[in-house]
C-alpha cells in the first residue's frame, strides 16, 4: 500500500496538509510589508534571506476574515512554480505518513471556497485532515468574495 508524507498545519482549528515535497521550509516571521491594492488574500511581503516572498493568507483563501499580521506568524513556504510563495497559517502540525487507503474525496457537504482548495480528506486518529491543492491555495486571483 502506497503512502505519502504530508506536512500538516491548522487554520481556524481545521487541520490541513500539503505533500512534503512541495514545502521548502517552515518558519515564523513577524514583519510583513502590506501591498496596497493587491488582491485581498495577499497578507504582505517579507524578506526571506534576501528574497522577497509573498505571504498568502490562507484564511482569506478559505473565505474567512484576514489574519492580523502582528507578532510572529507561521509561514509554510511552498516551492511554488518558479518562485517560493508562503501560506500564512495558525499553527504548524506534524509531518505524517498517510496510507492511500485512509484517503477519501472531499465530503459532498463541503461547499464554499474551501471546496475549491481541497483535493481530499485523510482520516487520521481522532481527526480529519484536508489535503490542499497547492496551486489553488496560492492562486490569489481566485474569486474569494
Amino acid at each position, binding site marked *: 500500500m502506497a503512502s505519502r508524507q504530508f506536512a500538516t498545519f491548522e487554520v481556524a482549528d481545521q487541520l490541513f496538509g500539503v505533500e512534503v515535497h512541495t514545502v521548502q521550509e517552515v518558519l515564523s516571521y513577524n514583519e510583513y510589508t502590506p501591498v496596497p491594492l493587491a488582491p485581498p488574500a*495577499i497578507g504582505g511581503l517579507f524578506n526571506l534571506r534576501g528574497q522577497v516572498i509573498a505571504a498568502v493568507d490562507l484564511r482569506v483563501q478559505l473565505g474567512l476574515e484576514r489574519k492580523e499580521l502582528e507578532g510572529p506568524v507561521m509561514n509554510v513556504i511552498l516551492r511554488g512554480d518558479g518562485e517560493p510563495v508562503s501560506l500564512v497559517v495558525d499553527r504548524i502540525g506534524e509531518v505524517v505518513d498517510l496510507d492511500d487507503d485512509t484517503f477519501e474525496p472531499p465530503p459532498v457537504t463541503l461547499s464554499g471556497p474551501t471546496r475549491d482548495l481541497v483535493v481530499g480528506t485523510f482520516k487520521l486518529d481522532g481527526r480529519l485532515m484536508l489535503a490542499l491543492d497547492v496551486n489553488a491555495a496560492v492562486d490569489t486571483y481566485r474569486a474569494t468574495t
Partner: protein
Amino acid sequence: MEDLGEIVGEFLMESHENLDQIDRDLVQLEQDPSSRDLISRIFRAIHTIKGTSGFLAFSRLEKLAHAGESLLSKLRDGVMPVTPTTITTLLATIDGVRSILAAIEETQAEGDVDIDTIIAQVNAQMNSGEAAAAPAAEAPAGETAEAGTPQSLDETPARPAPEPVENQRKPIGEILVETGAAQASDVGSALAQQIEGDERKLGTILLDEGKAQPAAVSEALQAQTPKRSIADSAIRVDVDLLDTLMNMVGELVLARNQLVRGVMETGDATLVRSAQRLGMITSELQEGIMKTRMQPIEHIWSKLPRVVRDLSQSLGKQVQLVMEGKETELDRSLLEAVKDPLTHLVRNAVDHGIEDPETRTAAGKIAEGKLTLRAYHEGGHVAVEVADDGAGLNVERIAQKAVENGLLRADQIASMDKRDIMAMVFQPGFSTAAKVTNVSGRGVGMDVVKTNIENIGGAVSVDSTPGQGTVWRLTIPLTLAIIQALTVDCGEQRYVVPQVAVLELVFIDGQSTKIEYASGAPVYRLRGKLLPLVRLDRALGLEVGGDQGVYIMVLQADGRRFGLVVDRVLNTEEVVVKALNSRFKDIGLYAGATILGDGKVGLILDVSSLARRSHLAPDAERQNLEASARAAKGGGTGERLLVTAVGERRVAIPLDTVTRLEEFPRERIEHAGSREVVQYRGQILPLVRLSHLLGAYGEEPEGDTVSVVVYSEGARSVALVVDRIVDIAENSTTARRDAEEDGLVGTAVIQQRVTELLDVRRAILAADPNFYTDLENDELLVEA
C-alpha cells in the same frame, strides 16, 4: 595593452582559453589515441585561431596554425596514427602559437618567434608518419628531444623559453633609485643592514628611516609586480554564482545591520569601531558584487558602427552615427536581451528611415543622414532610443495597410491617435516597405523586437514626425540593477521612489507653502506655475491624510511632471531592485521591491504608471506639455483647454478639471434607471453625453469605443462622453462672448475655430446630481 583594438583583445582572450583547452585535450588524446571527438575538438579550436589570425593579418601565426591543422587533419582522417611524437609536435606548435600571442599582446606585432623550425618539425613528422608509419621508431626520438639530448630538431627548443618579463623581478632598491625616490647610498646602507641581520624588508627600512616617501615605495612595489596578461586579468564567471553571491551579501548586510544595532546599545567603543569597520567592508563588498553584473551599454553598441557602415554603403546612403550615454549601465542579462532588437532597429532605421542622398537633398536636408543612439536612466528604467532624421513613418500608409491586413477597420482610423496607428507596425507580419530587401521589409522584425523587449518586462514605442524622422524607444526595466532611491513614508508604510525621477522636494507647512484646489484637483504653485498633484495615499487606496506638514516630491516621468504628496521624506539610499512576483504586475503601481536597511521589504513605486493612473492620458499630457512649451514661447499664459468634438461642434473643457481621458468599449455601457453607466475600477461611473446635454443631436459616431473625459473628486467620478478628443490648446484669445445656450459658459476662437466653453459644473450635475453635495460634506469632515 590598453592600446590594443577590442577585437585583438577579444581574440587574445579567446585564444588563450582555446589553447589551454587544446593543451588538456592533447594530453588526454595521448591517453586515448582513438578518440575522434577529441581530435575534432582540437581541430576546430586550431581552425578558429587560424581563421581569426588570418582575418587580423597575423600571417606568421596563421602559417603556424595552418601547419598544426594539417597535421591534425592527417590524424583525423586516420592517415597517421596518434603517437606521443605527434602529440609532442602538436604541443610544440601550440607553444609556438602561445609565444606569438604573447608577443602580440606585448608589442602588438608578431615579433620574431621562430616558427620555421616548428613548421619543419611538423612537416618532417607528416612525411615520416606517412612514409614509415612506424611510430614506435619515432617515439623515442620525440622523447629524447624533450629530454634535451642533441638532435637535429633540437636547435629550437620544442617549448620556447618563457617570456623574460614575467619571472624576473627587479630589486626594489633599483627601482627606487631609478625613479629618484631614494638615494643610492641610502639603499646601499639599508642593504648592508639587511645583510647584518635586519629582518625588515628593504622598503620598510627606508621608510622607517625617512629616506623614502610611502607613496614612492608602494609605487615601486607595484612596478615590481609583473603586469598581468589579458588571460590572467579576466575570467568568466557563471552568472548564477554571482546571483548566489549577491544574495549572500544581502544577508550579510542584514546581519551587519543587526549586529551594529546591538553593539551600539552596549556602548563599547572598541566593539563599535570594529562594527563600523565591518559595516564599511560589507558595503564595499556589496557594491563590488553588484558591479560584476553591470556593464555599460557600450558593449552592445560597439558593433553597431560597423553594421551601419556596411549597410549604408551597400544601400548607397550616407549615415552618420552618433552615440549618447554609452556609459549607461545595464544588467548583463538584460544587455544580452536588448542586443538583437537594438541591432534590428538600427538596420531598419538605415534601410527605411534614412533616405538616399538625392531624396534628402531634394527635401532640403543635408545629404548625410544622422542616426542617434541614446541611452539614459529615466524613472527607474533605462531608456534606449534609436532616432533617425529620415522621412518619418507614413501614417496614412500604415493605416491603409492595417485595414488591408484586417487589423483595423476603416471607420476606426478617423478617431485614432496618430501614435496608436504607428504602433500597428509592431503587429506580426506588418511591413509597409514597398519592396523587400535583404535587410528588412519581410514583415518579420518589429513584432519580434516588441516580443523580445516585452519578455524582459520592457516596452517599445515609436514616434515620428513626417519629414523630420522617427524615434524608436525601448524602455528597459532594471530587474537587478542598483538604483539610487529616496525612501518616503506614507501612512504607516515606507515606499521607495527612484531618485532619477525626482526633480525637487517641497515641504508644505500650510502657511507659506500650501496645497490649493482647482475645482477639486489638488495643485501646487511651483514658482508661479501650477503643478498637478497626486496624493500617494489616495493613489494607493489608503486613508487620505491632511494637507499640512507633508512633502511634495516633484517628479518627472515619460515627459510628464507632477507632484507626489507623501507624509515624510526620509533619506536616499542605494537599493537593489528585486522583480516583484507576477501576481502584483496587474496592480501596475510598483516597479519592484527591495530589502530596506532594517531588513523589511519596501515597495518601489513605478513613477510613470503613477503619473499615468492618477493623471491624464499620456498623449494628452504630452501635447499639453508641447502646448505649454508653445505658449511659453509666445508668452501666453491663458488657461489650458481640452478641445473635443461633439457632433459638428467643438467644445472645450478646462484641462485642470479633467482627471483622465478614457476609451470604453461600447458594449460596456449599461443602464441604471434612465442613466447610462459603466463599471470603472470597481465603481459605477455615470455617463453624460455632451451631445444630449448641448442638444447637438446628430449622427452617432460609428465605432466600437466611446471617448470619455473622466472627472473625479474623492470617491465620486463622472464621465462626459464626447465624439472625439481633438487637441489641447491654450486659450489666449480674448474674443469671447457669453453664450446664451444652456450648459455653456461662452464661446471663444481657439486655433482659428469657434469653440464653445463647457460649463463643467452643470455637465457634472447632469450626470450625478449629488456629486457636489457629498463632496462638500466630505470636505467639512476633513476640516473638522
